[in-house]
């Protein structure tokens, strides 16, 4: 199964929409609740990062028997130093975004903590690609 969602940079009123749709799909598939919870955290943070830091993006979601792969591809400023960005507390969010309560620099650490696998690649002045993989059975990862 394959789904796609568009994300508009700067449009906070739509932020979380795609994550909510993905959550519904996982529930329909009767995925374990704990896995759904972790998927929701990782996906929401990735979605909001496109809204807060990039110009536009697309989420590609692919389900199969044993996993869901959620790939977010954005056009934006990119991340010059991914290791630095991964540190809790690091943020370049604007003051407007911070006033809304975003910009704590906790999004990427939340993604790392909750995703079974997280891959981030980025090119400055072009964009960022984030791939979140979640396995439906805990064992699948360890096989």
């Amino acid at each position, binding site marked *: 199964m394959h789904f796609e969602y568009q994300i508009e940079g700067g449009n*906070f*009123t739509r*932020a*979380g*929409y795609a*994550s*909510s749709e993905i*959550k519904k799909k996982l529930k329909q598939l009767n995925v374990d609740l704990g896995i759904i*919870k972790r998927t*929701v*955290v990782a996906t*929401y*943070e990735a979605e*909001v990062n496109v809204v807060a830091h990039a110009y536009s993006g697309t989420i590609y979601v692919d389900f199969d028997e044993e996993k869901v792969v959620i790939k977010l591809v954005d056009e934006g400023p990119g991340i010059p130093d991914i290791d630095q960005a991964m540190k809790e507390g690091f943020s370049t969010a604007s003051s407007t975004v911070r006033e*809304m*309560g*975003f910009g*704590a*620099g*906790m*999004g990427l*650490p*939340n993604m790392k*903590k*909750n995703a079974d696998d997280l891959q981030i690649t980025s090119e400055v002045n072009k964009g960022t690609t984030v791939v979140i993989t979640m396995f439906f059975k805990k064992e699948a990862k360890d096989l």
Partner: protein
Amino acid sequence: MTVKELKEKLDLTIYSGEQGLDNEITGGYVSDLLSDVMGNADAGEVWVTLQTHKNVMAIASLKDMAAIILVNNHKPEEDTLAQSNEEGIPLLGTAMTTFEVTGRLWELIKK
């Protein structure tokens, strides 16, 4: 305790999301940083905050939280109310500060 019982005990204003008044409260989380709530709050909790915009509802819904309490007489924005009604997650308000309302919440729902 249900949201309705909490509303009565703390004399909270209800702005929206009345369908969710029977939601069971299992705990609470207090924060104005959205990623902190996303990462650390849990299903069934009541969320105390001063953030009034719609993203608060998006998070409460994604996390299956029981209700939101806006402190210090902060009023929700129109689209926040609309989403609260759609999701059936009550949006409550109080004139109390975060400190006061959290203290009273703790007394009521501590295990």
